[in-house]
């Protein structure tokens, strides 16, 4: 499995990561190794086996539809880098 620097750049851009040139080639190699391992796993016959999305065999964890207290505006905004009244303030978003 070959992973190019361009592939790494694409994934990095989607994840908003800024990588140095050294990191790009380092990760390209690491990602190729991971995907190579997946290629190896593909050799197994997995007909009739459900994909494992969770490591713990558990299903249907529910809560009832009841309102519980929120934490309050001050706590919610406590770590905000910027606020106006009770809004978080972010750089202008224009659509």
């Amino acid at each position, binding site marked *: 499995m070959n992973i190019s620097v361009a592939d790494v750049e694409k994934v990095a851009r989607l994840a908003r990561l800024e990588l140095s040139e050294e990191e790009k080639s380092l990760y390209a190699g690491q990602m190729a190794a991971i995907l190579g391992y997946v290629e190896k796993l593909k050799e197994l016959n997995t007909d009739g086996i459900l994909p494992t999305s969770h490591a713990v065999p558990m299903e249907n964890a529910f809560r009832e539809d*009841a309102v519980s207290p929120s*934490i309050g505006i001050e706590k919610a905004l406590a770590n905000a880098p910027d606020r106006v009244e009770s809004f978080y303030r972010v750089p202008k978003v224009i659509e």
Partner: protein
Amino acid sequence: MRFQPVIGLEVHVQLKTASKIFCGCSTAFGSEPNSQTCPVCLGLPGALPVLNKQVVEFAIQAGLATNCSITPRSVFARKNYFYPDLPKGYQISQFEDPICQHGWLDIQVEGQESKRIGITRIHMEEDAGKLVHGDVSGLEEGSGVDLNRACTPLLEVVSEPDLRSSDEAVSYLKQLHQIVTWLGICDGNMEEGSFRCDANVSVMPVGSETLGTRAEIKNVNSFKFVKQAIEYEIRRQIELIEDGATVVQETRLFDPTSGTTRSMRSKEEAHDYRYFPDPDLVPLVIDDAWVQRTRDELPELPEQRMQRFMTEWDLSAYDAEVLTASRSLAEYFEACVALHVNAKAVSNWMMGEITRALNDSGTSIDCCPVTPRLLVELLKLIEGGTISGKIAKTVFEAMWQSGKEPATIVQEQGLVQVSDSGAIEAIIDEILTREAGQVAEFRSGKDKLFGFFVGQVMKASKGKANPAVVNELLLSKLKG
């Protein structure tokens, strides 16, 4: 060249739960920004979502009411993208194995045959927060983020691209709206965004098998705007093609003031959402017993109730359709007919005076001051001959204002119908003497003057004379 529009709709239905889909914060609309938040819906590190069971119940109901099959084992997935209204950097949604699949609705556009529209899937997901621009002091610079709406439960209902005109799209949308409000799983308020629609629109030459490039139109929050937006978009795309240009796949925003759509942002990378199963939420398993229990508890749906009204109460298709426009309207009707009155009379009054009064006052049927019992009392007064149908409208007005019993109003205002032939005869004699000229004309063959005499008698009796008695006496005196 002639073109065929192809339309598919994605509808977001906000579910009427008390708490959010993955945490206990309230879903109430219009509270102070960020007052309904907690570590889960703020996306704080370490917070874990737990699924609200009511959301699943509502989703199964919606699926069954739209003829979907319910997926026995479904999972939640993370849809990854960055936007300031999305605190976690991903939206919890469903991708593979949504809870409902392969449904349909039959729609009816006036003057056309009924048509089946496929529903590809219905999935559960969380809503994002709300961005506020400009209209708060201090926000001249930057945008405000309110996360009260973040994590509110939504169903996304995705149709097949089976719709071929704006009218079909509106018809489908109205029917879906009727079903979710009827089930009571959504308040249906389009202005507050509880029921919102994105339209995928493309055009292709008539007879072609290949779909054209589609544009996705967002922000269409009324039935009228859906029609306008789709029609504008169809015209825009046809003009582009006719001018030799090509349609670009993109997201467009509908602007209600100009009735046009404009390009919003390029979707080049937006589609790379890198979905993967959310490890924080365990798989959802719905067995046959659960589906069956929900099916058994499902209320009679609008279409079925309409059919029943036609057979059980002998109503016309039109009347039955109007009376089943909402569940509360249908229940008002049934509450009336349960009190043993003429179903046709109830239907006429509901479609006439009641609808008019509700519209005039902007009231909904749930808050109608004239309750089914009061309406029935009024109808009984008409049936028993105590008041005429005309006077009944006056009594209705008074009931609407005061909420008093119709019999009390009739007594207080002296509105009892006069059926005593002696009293009516006296009035008729007076009119005939006064209008001697008209009498002579009538007798010389001008039959249509009869209505004039009836009108004069009713006027003189202040509308209280029994019309049947008036007609009978008047006819015999004029002929005599």
